């Protein structure tokens, strides 16, 4: 659970250092919970969509999630940096204003496997997600929203200076 030590690091990354310190502290939390002090919430036995996550071509990814026809939508707000210095941490923030948003898919077009994450939005959750993803190279970030059985999409080009998949 210790952070991997990298031999090279771009200068001026003191925030990362702070972050790593937070991580070290957090390991103590994990240990506490792993000891069974807090019972883990039972995870649903729902399937992890292996076919979709393993797909290497974008067309196959879309097919695997059932998105045969996708409409552009200005009702999906996607916030991502135009230039990501570090492909290992690309912040993405998604807000859907499409009524009945059921699922949000995050896709990085040129990643070895384009599908990054699927978020099922149950009743009671705002159709808003903010997270951080890895991008192997510059490409479009594509957010699909499933609402009322239909698919909608918003994209943004993200230029990656240092790729974040291998290393």
């Amino acid at each position: 659970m210790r952070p991997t030590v990298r031999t090279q690091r771009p200068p001026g990354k003191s925030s990362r250092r702070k972050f790593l310190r937070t991580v070290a502290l957090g390991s103590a939390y994990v240990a506490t919970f792993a000891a069974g002090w807090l019972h883990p919430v039972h995870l649903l036995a729902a399937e992890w969509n292996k076919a979709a996550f393993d797909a290497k071509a974008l067309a196959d990814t879309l097919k695997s999630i059932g998105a045969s026809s996708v409409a552009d939508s200005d009702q999906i707000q996607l916030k991502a940096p135009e230039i990501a210095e570090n492909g290992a941490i690309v912040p993405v923030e998604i807000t859907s204003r499409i009524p009945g948003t059921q699922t949000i898919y995050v896709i990085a077009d040129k990643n070895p496997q384009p599908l990054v994450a699927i978020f099922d939005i149950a009743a009671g959750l705002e159709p808003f997600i903010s997270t951080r993803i890895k991008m192997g190279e510059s490409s479009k970030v594509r957010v699909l929203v499933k609402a009322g059985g239909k698919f909608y999409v918003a994209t943004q080009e993200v230029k990656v200076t240092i790729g974040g998949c291998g290393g």
Partner: protein
Amino acid sequence: MKIRAQLQGDVADVKVLMFHPMETGLRKDPISGEVIPLHFIQRVVATHNGKTVMDAQWSQAVSKNPFVNFRIRGAKPGDKIAVSWEDNKGERASIETTLN
């Protein structure tokens, strides 16, 4: 794992930080040169008073030590918010907080 939930009116803004290497299976150990096996969180579930509000499936392309921020409607002081994850090796962790 860390969780912070703040009530803004009847909406709970929840930020979660998980501690996980999120190995892509593409990285090599800089010393041995051996490939570090795929190891990543596959599922994340968030509940509000025991009811699932977010059910996520992830790939190895979510950043190391994943962060996620989401918002729960109809929340009030005393409500419990819990988040659990499970990775591809069956390891699990969870955390719970009470709104105030």
